């Protein structure tokens, strides 16, 4: 096995079995905030136990090991084809070893060949930069929470949402209301304002690469993020929708240019089983450092 394949296999194992520290801290903080003796508290306790147990056993945190999303930053001249081929082999191997569930189905035949590799799976997003460093980030995005994602086209008459930040606020909070606990909350929102239907959702997912406690450098978006987080947690939806104080752990919003004719707000919901990890790779494909 090549060094690169080895490194990617370890990246997959760790992403599937270990929640990044910022998410873990955020869950522990919300556990302390919930009223003692409530169902919300019990739910968060079990979630926290599950996180510890999965790490100790090196087993998937959730049996839905999700869509496999690679984000690669690389220098000019980096061999992307080789990377993709190697990553696909690593995914197959990780599936054999049980780090990933046999989780990818041919949409036409309904067949699951048990490899997790097929058209569009896994997904790769490459970005070139001018530094020599290669970094690979991996997100495993669950299906239950993907199902509660939503895309709104503004203006939205029913929600009285216009083409401004207040309109965005209204539709984002509507998505939280509609999702209730069905996306295995407490959740994290990744949002893109603008773009087209495809780039909007794509960019909403890149927000999951951010750390939970980070702040948006754009003051207007930062204000919106803080406002939605606070408001959502006042709604009383709570973990799993059982009622309680913790509905969301974080809100991350970006903006993209749009056409004059369209104004999309694309919202992706990430469940508490927020699996994201990343590594830098040296020239041989060996892991340099862990990114989260």
């Amino acid at each position, binding site marked *: 096995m090549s060094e690169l394949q080895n490194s990617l296999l370890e990246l997959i194992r760790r992403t599937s079995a270990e929640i990044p520290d910022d998410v873990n801290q955020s869950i522990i903080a919300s556990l302390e905030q919930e009223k003692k003796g409530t169902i919300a508290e019990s739910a968060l306790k079990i979630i926290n136990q599950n996180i510890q147990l999965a790490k100790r056993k090196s087993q998937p945190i*959730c049996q839905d090991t999700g869509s496999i999303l690679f984000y690669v930053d690389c220098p000019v001249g980096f061999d992307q084809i080789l990377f993709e081929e190697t990553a696909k082999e690593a995914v197959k191997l990780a599936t054999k070893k049980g780090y990933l569930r046999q989780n990818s189905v041919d949409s036409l035949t309904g067949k699951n060949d048990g490899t997790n590799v097929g058209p569009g799976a896994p997904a790769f997003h490459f970005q070139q930069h001018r530094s020599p460093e290669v970094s690979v980030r991996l997100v495993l995005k669950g299906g239950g929470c993907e199902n509660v994602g939503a895309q709104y086209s503004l203006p939205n008459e029913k929600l009285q949402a216009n083409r401004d930040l207040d309109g965005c606020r209204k539709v984002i909070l509507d998505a939280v209301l509609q999702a209730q606990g069905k996306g295995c909350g407490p959740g994290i929102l990744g949002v893109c304002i603008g773009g087209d239907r495809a780039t909007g959702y794509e960019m909403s997912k890149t927000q999951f690469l951010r750390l939970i406690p980070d702040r948006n450098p754009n003051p207007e978006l930062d204000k919106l993020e803080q406002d939605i987080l606070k408001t959502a947690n006042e709604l009383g939806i709570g973990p799993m929708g059982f009622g309680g104080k913790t509905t969301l752990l974080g809100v991350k919003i970006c903006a993209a240019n749009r056409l004059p004719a369209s104004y999309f707000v694309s919202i992706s919901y990430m469940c508490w089983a927020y699996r994201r990890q990343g590594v830098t790779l040296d020239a041989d494909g060996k892991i340099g450092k862990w990114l989260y």
Partner: protein
Amino acid sequence: MIKLTFPFNEDKIRALKVGDEVLISGVVFTGRDAVHKYLHDGGQLPPEVKLRDGILYHCGPVVMKQDDGSWKATAAGPTTSIREEPYQAQIIKDFGIRGVIGKGGMGDKTLAACKEFGCVYLHAIGGAAQVLADCIKKVRNVYFYEKFGAPEAIWEFEVQDFPAVVTIDAHGNSLHKEVFAMSQAELAKRL
């Protein structure tokens, strides 16, 4: 915390109300999409699958064969229940099921069937695959393994202190409806 032990007879089930936390012990059978459709279409169960006064668990577990030939559940969290809404009420009625474990809640037809026939919906913690697998002390048997494949088969589990919350009771109450109405009202104040 209420201990709920097999057999889950009607009195025990009717005594439960939404918001109760329970620890389930005894036999539960898994069943998800393929099983529901099969039973709804009039399919027959093997005589060993005794659903009467039993619990059906919406779960597609990861179960590994051990060296001695026995099975072990290594990940076993709930799957989304609402997909079974078209079938669930009929199955509760026909098979005398007393409890359905899943996640995300169910709709009005199931709610009505729970009330009429004495059944509850038990919400497990979505994603807690490891904690819940640990509660499965024994895999007693598997049915329809060839026919439906591993995740869709009927697994007979012996569970101990499996945690869940009653979110639909046998009195017509639904925690999902209550929380939705309350959160909708709270949101309206903040728009």
